[in-house]
């Protein structure tokens, strides 16, 4: 049993979207919806400028608000801590979409709710999620947060700054952001477990 987590080093990310394209093809994500997208933030006035790209996707919360609201149990957490949607039992009621503070879920036009799965189908074979494997800046690390020697634990330990999105939501995301540029308002580190 692992507690899978991911870290994205924002000081390295160039917003190239290799991760987003890899996700799209790996998971046959239909046109018009995305499991993974990239946000650009810019600040300052010429020539004193700062910017960062931030890839966003399901944060695989330790306390996912999308799971208890599911009336059928389709939204569930695996023994490795991965939040998944079972397309067979999903009735596409949309409760989980409304409950997610990160807007990470979408209706698949084929009739169910979907989102990032941490490429759960690859993990058993020892392959990291498609976004991690392809990233040309090596900004993504993945692994077992409970294993201090995993890539992700090592990266988090070595970071000068660790952020999670919307810590006030108490969701305890297992996807964290490392080394965000100093010019962007820090989010509390305390929410990381």
């Amino acid at each position: 049993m692992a507690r899978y987590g991911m870290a994205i080093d924002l000081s390295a990310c160039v917003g190239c979207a290799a991760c987003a394209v890899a996700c799209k093809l790996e998971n046959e994500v239909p046109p018009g919806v995305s499991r993974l997208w990239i946000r650009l933030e810019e600040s300052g006035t010429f020539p004193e400028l700062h910017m960062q790209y931030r890839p966003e996707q399901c944060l695989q919360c330790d306390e996912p608000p999308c799971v208890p609201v599911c009336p059928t149990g389709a939204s569930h957490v695996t023994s490795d801590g991965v939040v998944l949607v079972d397309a067979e039992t999903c009735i596409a009621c949309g409760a989980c979409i409304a409950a997610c503070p990160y807007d990470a879920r979408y209706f698949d036009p084929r009739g169910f709710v979907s989102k990032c799965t941490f490429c759960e189908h690859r993990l058993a074979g020892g392959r990291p999620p498609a976004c991690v494997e392809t990233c040309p800046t090596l900004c993504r690390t993945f692994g077992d947060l409970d294993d201090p020697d995993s890539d992700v634990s090592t990266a988090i330990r070595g970071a000068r700054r660790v952020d999670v999105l919307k810590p006030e939501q108490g969701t305890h995301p297992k996807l964290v952001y490392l080394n965000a540029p100093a010019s962007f308002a820090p989010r509390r580190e305390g929410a990381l477990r």
Partner: protein
Amino acid sequence: MRLKRRAFLKLSAASVGAMMLAPEAGALKLPNPLARAPRAWYQGDVRTVLTYCENCFWKCGVRASVEGGRVWKVDGYAANPKSRGRLCPRGQGAVAQTYDPDRLKRPLIRLEGSERGEGKYREASWDEALGVVAAGMLAIKEKYGSESMAFFAHGSGDTWFGDYLPAAFATPNVGKPSVSLCTSPRETAAQWTFGRGIGGHEPVDWENTDYIVLIGHHIGEDTHNTQLQDFSMALKRGARLVVVDPRFSVAASKADRWLPIKPGTDTALLLAWLNVLVSEELYDRAYVEAYTTGFDALAAHVAPFTPEWASGITDLDAGVIRVVARELAAHAPRAVLPPGRHTVWYGNDTQRMRALYLVNALLGNYGVEGGFYLAQPPYIGAYPHPAFPLEPSSGGCSGASGDAAATIDTGFRPSVDRGTFFAKTTAVQELIPAMITGEPYRIAGLVAYGVNLFHSIPDVARTRQALKALDLYVAIDVLPMDHVMWADVILPEATYLERYDDLVAIAHKTPFIELRQPAVEPMWDTKPGWWIARELGLRLGLEEYFNWPDIESYLDTRLRSIGSSLEKARQQGTIVQGGRPYLADWEKRHLNPFGTPSGRIELASQTFADAGFDPLPVFEAPEEPPEGSYRLLYGRSPVHTFAKTQNNWVLMEMHGENSVWVNAAEARRLGLDSGDYVWLENQQGVRDGPVAVYATERLRPDCVYVVHGFGHRAPGMKIADGRGVSDTALMSRYRLDPISGGAGMHVTFVKLVPGAPKPRLPRLGKLAERSV
């Protein structure tokens, strides 16, 4: 209600920034509660095929995953030195091109009685289409001589249509856009400074460098996979980064120092750095004495070019200019100014690149760890056939650079640009006037292979005029690109996942050979380039050069020259050889890597002086934009390659339209907001667009910026057609670099004409559904 909330969120997210990569708003459908999860491709019997990518020309080794006769996914191949198991977005998305329903599906012949450019065609068999092409080529050979056929080629298949077939047919008029529309200044300058070109894979020793200065080099937006990995790892290791760019590029956002230089003044900055290195005696004296010639002339030449002098020209602080020179020296030789790639800017580009190399040389970094390594090509034998009547002359990114005066008596007329430039390679845009004027002799036929003639060569009106004047115009391509639909005969090529190509030999720190092999059969009635070239060759009476029965035996014979075989290579994908990356490796073997006339690094070039050019770089002030106009700068999107990928639905979801970046204060002055549509109008009154404004602090006020490759006017490309603006369409002029033959393309000035309508275009998601 929930649906509405989600749609609202997506809309508000999409308004965050023009570069925001967000899912398309309004794409939701009511779900069908009865639907069931589809079976995923990876649950099937997946076969892996090793090949190399073609979605840009970096040539990364990949693993294609095939299931049920379809390629589903392409990933990096770990044993390949280019990809190292990773891929950029274009490589990841390339598979969508193979399944693009807008692909050219079978040969087309222009309808009799229709004009070129009307786009009226009928389908034809391969036999008929190839017969028409061969008959046309033979008629031209008969009437004007074989030299009157020109070939423009780009992509892996350019070995067939840029080298093999033209050399067999005996024409020297072969051009690649990757030379004179891209790298020729840096290649020519390197050849005449170091005696070695740069080559297709820039030999920057990223893994050992501690201080990097990028000049107009957009790593991150330019996603050459290995380079991006190296860049990222260097920064992670703590290497310092200085970025010189009028625009706050992605690379600039990672930099310790951003120098927002006035466009066109880079040579002044480089001369000032040379001045500081010399006047403060910060250069590597031992290296300069051991390996260079012309130092005294250089020292005297740069004496007046102080940082204070450069400050007034570049709009940069003299103190910062001085500090960067000192920091470079403090980190030398593990300090490097990489050459960049697209270096055709202002028409004096060889001299600017010389200045950049001279700074590197004074840092003592060429052939030294942390600077430039010495790239070596791998060994691989050619397929045995009689000598071609002419040597291939098109060059490539790594094309040879030569002596303009050197002529070889071949019995054929030299290329129409021969003798003009210090490059053995042909300046592709300089072949066009001969199609119109017949001077020095007429070019009457053209084969365009994988080159978008209207989105790569400046002065599109001239190109159109030339195409109209030809006796024969043939296009070989995958998609019905703008220029393709002008051809007399259109030959549809299979995509890279469906074909073999010739072996590719990569000059590198560890030289290697890559195999291209099909993952699936060609779709529709498309054919691989090798097959098209060979079938044409047989119809042209060139059997003796196409003396291989099929591509498998051709490749197998070549691979056996290095003790491999096609069978082994199909399993291995990439064959890596040993290299000699540093000067010390050469000296051990008593070899001299410097192929200059003097056998040393030539700080001053007597050859250039003898030809009437400056032996040392001189700053030449660029023409200023007229009042109310801005200099048009252009660059890359990380998800697009030139004008080749704008019909790929996956990549277009990431970046579906370019915008014109305008300094925010200028936009306010013009009364423009982000999202307003404008026309761009150049100094000659040529308009293109409409294009959305992106008002940003990330650009100087004297220029505007667009991403290259958009603005297709190609009705057959349903996704690309009509989205964004074409920078090439606005380049009604260019400034020729007289040394390299490069076409300087930073010389366009544009006005923003407000009030343009927002284009009404079909929804991308709807178009994409055709292919899934």
